[in-house]
């Protein structure tokens, strides 16, 4: 009996190929969405409030009041960032952005949680002057890891935060000015860049 030289595999059922196509489209959208999911204008708002907080914190004489100012700023900034993220996702009406948001949050939250846990430890140990370095370093780590698959400016921004954090750990007396440079200046600068080039 004559056998064909090459056997072609049986084609997949039609609906399976259609399902594969849909999965492929979703996966591509999910890979592409993080590139623009980071809200630039949200960063600008967060930077603006950080400048005000740095000014207010520098005027406090008691460590507890100083800490209260920065904790209030952290809550406000994370809220603003979250709102900006959701608004950008809604405006772009992208199914991939929901997945991108989950991926971003999954990488962003652990270093932030570590910072939240270490803050009372440092405060009770009388190491409040090292808190700006700790916060900047861990926030930078969160941005760098969460933005690893995003546009290049996001991990670069994370690395810049880590650099400013390292400086703050070496120069604890410069805590508030370096917080203004990091949470204020870097947020505003990179936020404007992202907003201008990547849809808000």
């Amino acid at each position: 009996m004559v056998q064909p030289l090459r056997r072609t595999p049986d084609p997949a059922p039609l609906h399976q190929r259609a399902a594969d196509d849909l999965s492929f489209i979703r996966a591509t959208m999910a890979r592409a969405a993080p590139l623009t999911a980071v809200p630039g204008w949200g960063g600008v708002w967060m930077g603006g409030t950080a400048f005000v907080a740095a000014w207010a914190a520098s005027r406090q004489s008691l460590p507890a009041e100083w800490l209260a100012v920065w904790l209030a700023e952290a809550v406000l900034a994370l809220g603003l960032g979250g709102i900006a993220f959701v608004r950008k996702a809604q405006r772009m009406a992208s199914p991939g952005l929901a997945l991108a948001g989950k991926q971003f949050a999954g990488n962003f939250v652990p270093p932030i949680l570590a910072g939240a846990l270490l803050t009372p430890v440092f405060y009770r140990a009388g190491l409040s002057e090292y808190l700006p370095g700790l916060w900047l370093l861990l926030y930078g780590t969160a941005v760098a890891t969460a933005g690893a698959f995003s546009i290049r400016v996001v991990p670069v921004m994370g690395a810049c935060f880590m650099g400013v954090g390292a400086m703050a750990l070496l120069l604890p007396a410069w805590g508030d000015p370096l917080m203004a440079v990091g949470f204020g200046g870097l947020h505003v600068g990179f936020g404007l860049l992202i907003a201008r080039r990547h849809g808000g």
Partner: protein
Amino acid sequence: MAERSAAKRRAAGPPRPRLDAVAGGAAAPLDLDRIIHERVRLAIVSALAVAPSMSFNELKQVLGATDGNLSVHARKLEEAGYLECRKSFAGRTPRTEYALTGAGRAALDRYLAHMEAVIRAARGEGA
């Protein structure tokens, strides 16, 4: 002439199979958009559907495509009116930016509707 066409087909690799409306159903093929049905082009259109615009390098990063492959397929989409291409300079570096046009978005919506219809039809048969 036929030999040359066959050689071209071999060089382009195996074509994606034709999608019939429903297996065992209507014999006429689905009115699929051939421009989008090709995988790289489908990926380009899908990626641009979730971003206002993307640079050539960003698309390359997302798709994992080579420069040549991406530029060839992007040009086909541009010729079909599905993509808009803007060229500019960032300092001295040339920058190519792509965005999906209204026609491109509509074509992707149509394609998605086709795929969903195929799946719905298959489920209906199995029920």
